[in-house]
């Protein structure tokens, strides 16, 4: 069943999970992207599209609060995001999976659960099974393939009791099943009232419904071209 | 004049101290010029690359 976002009126009435106003970032005075304006409501999945080096990763780091914007403002659930007060409502999946190669998948997830808390009704074991890695509990993460590591990292995101997912290239390294898995996870998350911002360089895409897209280009590039 | 240079027997010490003072400060004053030239050359390189990129995309 394809899900059309945002579905219910009830979800729409809540404040925007994420709001960016005039968001721009420059590195060594070279504009990376922006200024950008967008909002993300509960139940929405937004796709950030851009070529290599267009600043997709930078945007996610800005939205998670790791990086301060050059100009503009970010609001999470109505509250301005500052470096000193990072939001407990964001889960970030970045290029580095954030997994310890020496630890088993389940140990990695247990640590993540200890750090961020646990979504009610889930446990590391059930989540691991949920990403198609049932029985891999005791395998050290370094012995997993790149795609399997990605699944463990996705399990970590799934586990966190947060409304907003920021996923950097979630489809990378995944097989056909894996891509479907990501889509399913995103769809469930949106149905639960969560929202997600995912990046992709375009090869794969969120196929469920018609997600909103944010094209990412630097303002300066646009005016020069 | 010789008396002045001898500095009561401490000439070597006094004059070497003053030499250090002048040499270091002279280098310190010349350094920004070299840096400035390098920074501006870098900048021109960046501009050239950007122009090339824009021409290619246009």
């Amino acid at each position, binding site marked *: 069943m394809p899900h059309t976002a945002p579905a219910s009126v009830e979800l729409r009435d809540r404040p925007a999970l994420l709001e960016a106003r005039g968001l721009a970032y*420059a*590195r*060594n*005075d*070279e*504009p990376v992207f922006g200024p950008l304006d967008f909002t993300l409501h509960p139940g929405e999945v937004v796709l950030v599209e851009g070529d290599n080096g267009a600043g997709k990763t930078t945007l996610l780091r800005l939205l998670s609060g790791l990086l301060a914007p050059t100009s503009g403002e970010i609001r999470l659930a109505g509250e301005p995001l500052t470096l000193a007060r990072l939001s407990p409502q964001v889960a970030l999946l970045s290029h580095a999976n954030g997994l310890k190669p020496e630890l088993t998948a389940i140990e990695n997830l247990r640590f993540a659960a200890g750090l961020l808390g646990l979504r009610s009704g889930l446990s590391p074991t059930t989540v691991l099974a949920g990403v198609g890695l049932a029985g891999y509990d005791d395998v050290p993460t370094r012995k997993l393939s790149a795609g399997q590591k990605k699944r463990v990292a996705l399990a970590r995101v799934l586990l966190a009791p947060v409304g907003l997912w920021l996923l950097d290239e979630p489809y990378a390294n995944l097989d056909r099943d894996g891509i479907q898995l990501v889509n399913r996870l995103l769809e469930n998350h949106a149905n639960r009232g969560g929202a997600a911002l995912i990046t992709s360089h375009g090869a794969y895409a969120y196929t469920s419904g018609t997600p909103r897209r944010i094209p990412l280009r630097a303002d*300066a590039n646009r005016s020069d071209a | 004049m010789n008396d*002045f240079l001898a*500095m*009561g*027997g*401490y*000439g070597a*010490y*006094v004059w*070497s*101290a*003053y030499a*250090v*003072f002048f040499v*270091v*400060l002279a*280098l*310190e*004053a010349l*350094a*920004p010029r070299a*840096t*400035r*030239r390098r*920074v*501006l050359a*870098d*900048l*021109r390189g*960046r*501009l050239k690359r950007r122009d090339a990129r824009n021409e290619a995309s246009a």
Partner: protein
Amino acid sequence: MNALTLWFHKTGSPPTAYRLAGRIMPWCYGLGLVLGLVALYGGLVLAPRDYQQGDAYRIIFIHVPCAWMSLFAYFFMAANAFIALVWRIKLSEVLAMAAAPIGAAFTFITLVTGSIWGKPMWGTWWTWDARLTSELVLLFLYLGVIGLHAAIEDRRQAARAAGFLALIGIVNIPIVHFSVNWWNTLHQGSTVRLMGPSKIDASMIWPLLLMALATHVWFFGSVLARTRIGLLELDGGKDWVRAIALDDDKEAHA
């Protein structure tokens, strides 16, 4: 926004600051040079011989002003780093990082002239005394700040990290001083005092103070020169910098 903050904002904007710095800088260098030469004439020729140290004391006319400058430059750097970290003002970041190499130069001069002076007077080039050791640590701190600033790619991040280090250092310097103090003291006390009478004759103090003034003015000239470069680097993509870069190229080929 009131008039003062508006003025501050305007002067603090990179192109204005660049132009202003360019206008003041030559005056600072020139005044510093003139004052310095007068002070040198006073110190080397006019000032009488010391009753105790003979002519060797004449090193004081460069050693002491440089020692003052080494601390002054550090406070200047740390104060600007503090402003940069708290209010994220670009100009403060640049000013803080501009002060570091100059401070390092003055610290180096202080150490070298001090040990040249120490050899005939104390009987040793170097001793692990509180002032000497803390001055050496100060030099290491300057080099650390410069090294950290150079090692980070992003200019603003580099300035913040190095500024943070400078702030840690400002706590460290007195600690080093007092820690060494309890196991060794050789360096004499302060000669020139803000409170109470100075322990130096009037015929000797004026070249000293004049040289101190000269080094301060020189310091600001050099800070401005480096600030201009820092601003160019930081604002590399802007039109005003572009114009300067192209002008400079024309000059070089003319």
